[in-house]
C-alpha cells in the first residue's frame, strides 16, 4: 500500500514540477530578418532557462493594431511585445508597460545613449532595443564616379540633386534617386519629415499649431516632388522601403536614402546585384542638419496585462544582451548581428571589419536627436520622424496621402499642403491641443 502511495505522490510531484518548469511566454513580433533569426535561436534560451517561447509573427500594421487593442483592454494575450520608439513614450507614460529592471551583468549603460533615451521616461527604461536604425544615403560609387562627381560624407540636398541628375542623364534605365513616396506615417510620412526638418521645418510649433503652411514645409515638399518627378523612378508615389530595396538591388537606382538597416541587404551578395558597388554617406542637410536623419528602434517591452513578468524579463534580458550578439555572430557571422543598440558592438574590431556600413550607422544614430531641441526651431514633442502623441498616426497618414498625391501629379504642392494643414489643424483642435 505504501509503495502505491509513494508512486502516486511521485507521479503527482513529477507532474507538478513539469508544469512549473515548462512555463511558456507569448511574444508578438514583426516579420523582419533579425526577428526571424531570433526565433530560430529560441531553443538556446529555452535550454538555458527552461522557459518555452511561442511566437506570433505579423505584418507591422496588423501587429500594431492587435497589440494596441490588447494593451488598451489589458487582454493579456502577450507577455512580450515588439514595439517602436513611437509607442514607448506614449504607452509607458500611460502606465501600459512594465518598467524593465535588469541585473548588473546586462550593462544597461552600454546601450547607445540616443536609443536608450528614446525608450525611457524620467530615466526609467520601458523597452529594451533589439535593433536600432537611423537613415543614411546608400549610393552606387561606380555611377557617381562615372558622372565625374564625388559624394560628400554629409552632403546637402542641393548636392544630392545634382548627383541624381547626373546619374539619371548619364545612364539609361537608372534613376538618380529612389525615395519613399508611399502614403503612411511610417512610410513616406517618416521620410518627408526628415526632409522638412532639414529645411528648417517641424510638425508643430510650441503651441501645437501644425506647420504645414510654413515656408519651410513648402520649400521641402516642392524640392522633394521636383527631385522625384525628374530623377526618381516611375510610380514613386507608391514606393516604400521594399519597393526601393528591390529597385536598388536590381541596379536601377543611383542612390537610395532610407533606413541604415538596409545597408546589410544591399551589400548582401545573395540579394543584391550591385552588392560590391555600394557606398554610404550621412543623410543630407539643407538649412540645418538637425532632424535630417531619423531614429527608430524595434524594441521589446512587457505589457501591463502580462502575468509572467519574471519570465518575460528573462527573455528580454537574453534577446537584447551582449551574449546574444555573440551567439548570432558565432552562428551566422558578425555582419548579421542586430545593429544599432550597443556601444560595445561598435568597439568590436571584427564587427567593424565585417560590416562596412557599421561606422556610418553609428554616426547616423548618434547624430539623431529625438529631444525637444532636435529641430532648428524648438518643438513641443519627442521624436525625429514622428511626434510622440497618440493623434500623430492619423494626422501624418492623412498628410502623407496629400503629399503622395502631389508627387503623383494629381494636385499641386500648394494645394496638398493647404489640405494637409486643414486636416492637421482640425484634428489637433478636436484633440484639445489648440482652441
Amino acid at each position, binding site marked *: 500500500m505504501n509503495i502505491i502511495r509513494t508512486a502516486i505522490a511521485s507521479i503527482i510531484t513529477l507532474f507538478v514540477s513539469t508544469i512549473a518548469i515548462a512555463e511558456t511566454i507569448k511574444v508578438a513580433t514583426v*516579420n523582419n530578418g533579425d526577428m526571424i533569426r531570433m526565433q530560430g535561436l529560441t531553443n538556446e534560451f529555452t535550454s538555458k532557462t527552461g522557459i518555452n517561447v511561442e511566437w506570433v509573427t505579423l505584418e507591422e500594421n496588423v501587429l500594431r493594431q*492587435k497589440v494596441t487593442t490588447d494593451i488598451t483592454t489589458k487582454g493579456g*494575450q502577450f507577455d512580450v511585445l515588439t514595439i517602436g520608439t513611437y509607442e514607448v513614450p506614449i504607452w509607458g507614460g500611460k502606465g501600459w508597460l512594465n518598467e524593465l529592471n535588469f541585473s548588473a551583468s546586462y550593462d544597461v549603460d552600454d546601450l547607445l545613449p540616443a536609443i536608450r533615451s528614446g525608450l525611457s521616461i524620467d530615466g526609467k527604461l520601458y523597452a529594451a532595443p533589439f535593433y536600432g536604425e537611423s537613415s543614411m544615403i546608400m549610393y552606387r560609387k561606380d555611377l557617381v564616379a562615372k558622372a565625374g562627381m564625388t559624394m560628400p560624407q554629409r552632403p546637402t540636398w542641393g548636392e544630392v540633386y545634382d548627383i541624381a541628375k547626373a546619374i539619371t542623364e548619364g545612364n539609361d534605365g537608372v534613376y538618380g534617386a529612389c525615395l519613399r513616396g508611399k502614403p503612411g506615417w511610417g512610410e513616406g510620412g517618416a521620410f518627408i519629415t526628415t526632409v522638412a526638418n532639414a529645411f528648417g521645418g517641424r510638425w508643430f510649433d510650441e503651441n501645437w499649431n501644425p506647420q504645414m503652411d510654413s515656408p519651410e514645409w513648402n520649400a521641402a515638399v516642392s524640392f522633394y516632388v521636383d527631385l522625384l518627378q525628374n530623377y526618381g523612378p516611375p510610380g514613386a508615389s507608391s514606393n516604400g*522601403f*521594399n519597393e526601393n530595396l*528591390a529597385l536598388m538591388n*536590381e541596379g536601377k537606382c543611383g542612390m537610395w536614402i532610407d533606413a541604415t*538597416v538596409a545597408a546589410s541587404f544591399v551589400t548582401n551578395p545573395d540579394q543584391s546585384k550591385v552588392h560590391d558597388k555600394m557606398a554610404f554617406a550621412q543623410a543630407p542637410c539643407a538649412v540645418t542638419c538637425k532632424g535630417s536623419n531619423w531614429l527608430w528602434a524595434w524594441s521589446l517591452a512587457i505589457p501591463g496585462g502580462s502575468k509572467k513578468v519574471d519570465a518575460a524579463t528573462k527573455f528580454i534580458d537574453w534577446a537584447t544582451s551582449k551574449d546574444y550578439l555573440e551567439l548570432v555572430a558565432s552562428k551566422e557571422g558578425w555582419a548579421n548581428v542586430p545593429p544599432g543598440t550597443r556601444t560595445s558592438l561598435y568597439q568590436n574590431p571584427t564587427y567593424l571589419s565585417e560590416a562596412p556600413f557599421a561606422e556610418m550607422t553609428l554616426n547616423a544614430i548618434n547624430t539623431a536627436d529625438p529631444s525637444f531641441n532636435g529641430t532648428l526651431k524648438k518643438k513641443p514633442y519627442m521624436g525625429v520622424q514622428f511626434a510622440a502623441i497618440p493623434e500623430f498616426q492619423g494626422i501624418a497618414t492623412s498628410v502623407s496621402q496629400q503629399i503622395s498625391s502631389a508627387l503623383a501629379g494629381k494636385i499641386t504642392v500648394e494645394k496638398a499642403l493647404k489640405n494637409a494643414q486643414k486636416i492637421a489643424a482640425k484634428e489637433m483642435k478636436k484633440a484639445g491641443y489648440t482652441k
Partner: protein
Amino acid sequence: MKKKIIITFFAWLFSLLIFFPILWMIITSFKTEIDAVAIPPLFFSFEPTLENYGIVQERSNYLKFAQNSVIISFGSSILGLVLSIPIAWSMAFHPTKRTKGTLLWILSTKMMPPVGVLIPIYLIFRDFSLLDTQLGIVIVLCFVNLPIMIWLLYSYFKEIPNEILEAVRIDGASTLQEILYVLVPLSLPGIASTSLLCIVLAWNEAFWTLNLTSIDAAPLTTFIASYSSPEGLFYAKLSAASTLSVLPVLFLGWFTQKQLVRGLTFGAVK
C-alpha cells in the same frame, strides 16, 4: 459556329484574366526573392526553386494553421445552419407584418464596419476567456455570416410550395420533423451552396481571425500575415504561404462548382 468560337474565346480570355493573379502568385512562389522583384517581371525565364516552401515549412507549423482554418470555417458554417434554417423557415412560411423589416434589419448589421465593435467584443472575449480559442472565433464568424445565410435560405425556402408543408402537418408531423424530413431534403442544393459560400467566406475572413486569435486558434490568415515584412524582401515566401493557404479551398471550389452554381441559381428561372 463562328459565334460559338468567339464566345468560347472571350470566355477563356475572361477566365484567364480573373485567374491571372492566382497564377502569378503560384509562379512567384517558385522564384528566389531576387527573381520575384526582377524588373521587367520574369514569367518563365527563371530557375524554379522549392526553397520558399522549405522555409515556410521550417518556420511555421502549416498543418496546425490549416487544421484551425478547417475547424473554424466548417464549425461556424454548421453552427450557422443550425441557427439560420429555423429562422429562415419561420420567416418564409409563417411571415408576420414585421418579417420584411426584420430581414432588412438583419442585413443592415452587415453594413457596420467591424472595427466599430472590436473593443466591446474583445472585452467580452477577455472576460469569458475566449481569446485565442476555436470556440470563440467559431461563434463570431457564425454571427458574421448569419445575415447572408438567413437571406439565402429565406429565398430558397420561398421557392418551396407551402402546400407540401401543410400536407405534412395534416399527416401529423411535428415542426422538427417538418423541417428535418421535408424542408431540408427539398432545399438541399440551396443549403449546400449556402454552406459552401459561408465556408469560403469564413476561410478568407481576416479581420476577426487576426484580432481575436494569436497562436492556439490562429488560422491560415494569420499564417499568411506572418510572411509580410516592412523591411526586407518577402514576395516569394509570401506567395508560397499564400499558395499553400488557398489550395484547399481552391480544390473544394473546383470539386463542388456544379453544386455551387446550381445552388446559387436555384429558383432564378421559373
